[in-house]
């Protein structure tokens, strides 16, 4: 493992131009951190949903299907944040809005009607099991999207 990493490092363009100079990246600066956090959440949601469906789908088919749907939406949102173009921009708005709606709805329901969700999902208790990241991330994503429109007049009203 270490030797592999060293080899990677040797072949890396260590004297390359600063990455911040690349002008046509659709996402830059702290936005890349946002993408990575989305990616980790997508991985976490996918992993949990995979385990739930593989081990005990029969116990709560509705909750586990919802888990899988949430996982897919996180993956699409991550991709949409990375890709450029107004189509992906709209997809990013749609998926991130869906996430916000999901975490607020399921979060509220899991407190008011806990018997509906016998097992934790990503969105239960407003994402408390995931350090409330599912609750914090959509507003951050929306803030990012609002500040980085592909064209000024076409989009932005889709939220």
């Amino acid at each position, binding site marked *: 493992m*270490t030797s592999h*990493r060293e080899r*990677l490092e040797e072949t890396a363009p260590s004297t390359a131009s600063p990455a911040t100079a690349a002008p046509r990246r659709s996402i830059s600066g702290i936005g*890349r951190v946002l993408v*990575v956090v989305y990616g*980790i959440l997508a*991985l976490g949601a996918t992993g*949990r949903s995979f385990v739930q469906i593989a081990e005990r789908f029969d116990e709560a088919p509705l909750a586990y299907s919802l888990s899988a749907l949430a996982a897919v939406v996180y993956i699409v949102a991550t991709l949409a944040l990375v890709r450029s173009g107004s189509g992906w921009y709209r997809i990013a708005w749609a998926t991130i809005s869906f996430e916000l709606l999901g975490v607020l709805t399921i979060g509220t329901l899991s407190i008011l009607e806990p018997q509906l969700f016998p097992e934790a999902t990503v969105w239960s208790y407003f994402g408390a099991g995931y350090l409330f990241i599912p609750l914090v991330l959509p507003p951050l994503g929306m803030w990012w999207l609002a500040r980085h429109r592909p064209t000024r007049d076409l989009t932005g009203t889709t939220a």
Partner: protein
Amino acid sequence: MIEWFTWLQVAVAVVAGLLCVTLGFLGKKPSDLTLGSLALVEVLLVVQLVIAIVAPFTGNTAVGSVLEFYTYLVSAILLPVAAAFWALVDRSKWSTVILGVVGLAIAVMVYRMQQIWTTLPL
């Protein structure tokens, strides 16, 4: 899982995470120090994998879901590789922050793995 090793691993991941996030926000590009700290986290994860494979043969079996445990462990092992690759392609200060975010995420995942190993599923 071996409890003291797990806590050592969580501690190393937290320190590496905080180090990289701090250095990143101070404007440092990925360096031998920051990449090395994540490499250490990765090595400990591989050791954890070996421990997890061997432990059941010594009577130290998981109480919770083994599948869930390995889903976390395999995801955690992939994360530093992905983050290091990112850091080598994109040599900006944000890559250092990303190394740190991954370190902190791994700390949480290892903590969760300890819970899965030692407690019955709800």
